[in-house]
């Protein structure tokens, strides 16, 4: 299910959330990176058919999302995991999924129950399927969220900040699960955690202040920091004078900094291969056109 976006604008009163966004999203796993407030959630809500765009063209699988008919058609083939996912605390995981299945139009009881059971297995919640959701941890709730999104075998999966607030183990687990889901479907992953995109997506877009700053292969994004990524040792409490510090590792001899900078940040700075995070930082340092 490909997504074509042309000249998309979104306003909330006087606030411009999206400004002239052009994007072409093919099938498979696609990452959407950006800082908080960059407009990622707004874009995800538009693609999910939850929000009507102020201006511009958005087509998802051929459906025009500027029309109500198009948005309803997309919602029928959609799995959506919103950023602020809420669950009914008085239902069990199995009941909640059954409820969402009914709302998705899965009317055949036996088939729906079977699918719910399979998804609970898939997300590793089969053992606690009949426990009330009010006792679930953040990670377990997110897994219920992804299971409900997968109900009805949607062609398009829109997941908004799915790993926010998860502990590292849950994050890796969740990422792996998402990666395995792409296959034939389009999975759109919005996040501000660069590592999540690095580990799961081949293509990505970067959004800042409502505009697309980058779109293309993830490896190309990393290459934006080629020749600009350095590691340098410095005494504790004295960060390098130039560039953006990507990481700082404390050592007995001082602190080892990883820096993105056009020029070497110190006489003993060593050039290193850039990661996606370095590429992202390099992109953010560029002036917006």
């Amino acid at each position, binding site marked *: 299910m490909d997504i074509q976006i042309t000249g998309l604008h979104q306003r909330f009163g006087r606030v411009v959330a999206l400004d002239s966004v052009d994007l072409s999203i093919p099938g498979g796993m696609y990452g959407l990176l950006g800082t908080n407030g960059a407009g990622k959630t707004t874009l995800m809500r538009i693609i999910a058919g939850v929000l009507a765009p102020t201006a511009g063209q958005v087509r998802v699988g051929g459906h025009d999302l500027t029309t109500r008919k198009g948005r309803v058609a997309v919602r029928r083939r959609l799995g959506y995991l919103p950023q*602020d996912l809420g669950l009914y605390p008085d239902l069990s995981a199995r009941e909640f999924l059954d*409820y969402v299945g009914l*709302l998705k139009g899965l009317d055949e009881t036996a088939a729906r129950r079977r699918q719910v059971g399979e998804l609970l297995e898939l997300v590793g919640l089969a053992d606690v399927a009949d426990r009330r959701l009010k006792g679930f941890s953040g990670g377990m709730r997110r897994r219920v969220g992804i299971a409900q999104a997968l109900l009805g075998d949607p062609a398009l999966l829109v997941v908004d900040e799915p790993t926010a607030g998860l502990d590292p183990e849950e994050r890796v687990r969740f990422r792996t699960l998402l990666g395995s889901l792409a296959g034939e479907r389009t999975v759109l992953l919005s996040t501000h955690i660069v590592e999540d995109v690095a580990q799961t997506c081949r293509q990505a877009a970067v959004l800042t202040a409502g505009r697309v700053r980058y779109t293309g292969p993830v490896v190309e994004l990393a290459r934006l920091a080629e020749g600009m990524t350095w590691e340098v040792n410095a005494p504790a409490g004295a960060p390098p004078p130039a560039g953006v510090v990507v990481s700082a590792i404390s050592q007995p001899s001082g602190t080892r900094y990883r820096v993105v900078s056009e020029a070497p940040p110190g006489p003993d700075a060593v050039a290193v291969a850039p990661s996606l995070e370095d590429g992202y930082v390099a992109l953010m340092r560029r002036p917006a056109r």
Partner: protein
Amino acid sequence: MLGQLWGICRYEFRMQLRKRSLWISTVLLLTFAVVTQGDRGPRHVPMEATAREVMGNWTVLFWIMLPLVFGVVLADRVVRDRRLGVRGLLLGLPVGEGRLLAGKYLGGIAATGLPGLLALLAAAGYEAVHRGTIATFGWALVGFLTVMLPGLAFVAGFALVCPLLVSAPLFRVLFVGYWFWGNLTAPRFLPSLTGTLLTPVGAYPASWLLGEPVMHAGVPGWLAMLRPEPTGAAALGSVALLLVIGVLPLVVTVLLRKEGRA
């Protein structure tokens, strides 16, 4: 389509039945009503009275205060979707606003109606043993269907929707005030909706059930045109009005939400 409506209704019913406050407050209020009913209450209805009169009295006793519980309980059923963060998820599902609200409305009525029905059946059981007639069960059902259910439908419509405008806690305060003013305050003391066809306390169906005017039905005064002579037809009119008016806030909300929804 019907599968979705049935599903929302079923799960709304289930979630509300699990709400302990519904059961605890109902039991407390009904116990209070039974204990303090005084010598005009149903326990003091003469032995020669018909099952209809007996159960009519029980219905009135229970229904004078029970809607307070139901209105308060129902007040968070729609707004809580936003509070819990479920609304964002629901918006991404292929389900219309009308069906969502209708399912919550029907599920809410069923869940809050059940304790009222059980209370009436318990009273019918007591009276059946006490008076030796099982007709009390039939009249308990009639009391539920004519007095409780229309009033509950009216209360549910407003209780689900009004908290979208004024917040659930404020609605609860206003609702308690409305209940005493609009249902129990004698109209000759204060201009009020009490005793009109529009009172969800069910003055007209209760008058029909008891065979005599009760709860100021038909008394002259302010809004006298809404207080016709209590007859079977007037009771039927009152039931129809309560059902229709109860649905109105839902219809308005669905139209407004459709307007605002993508």
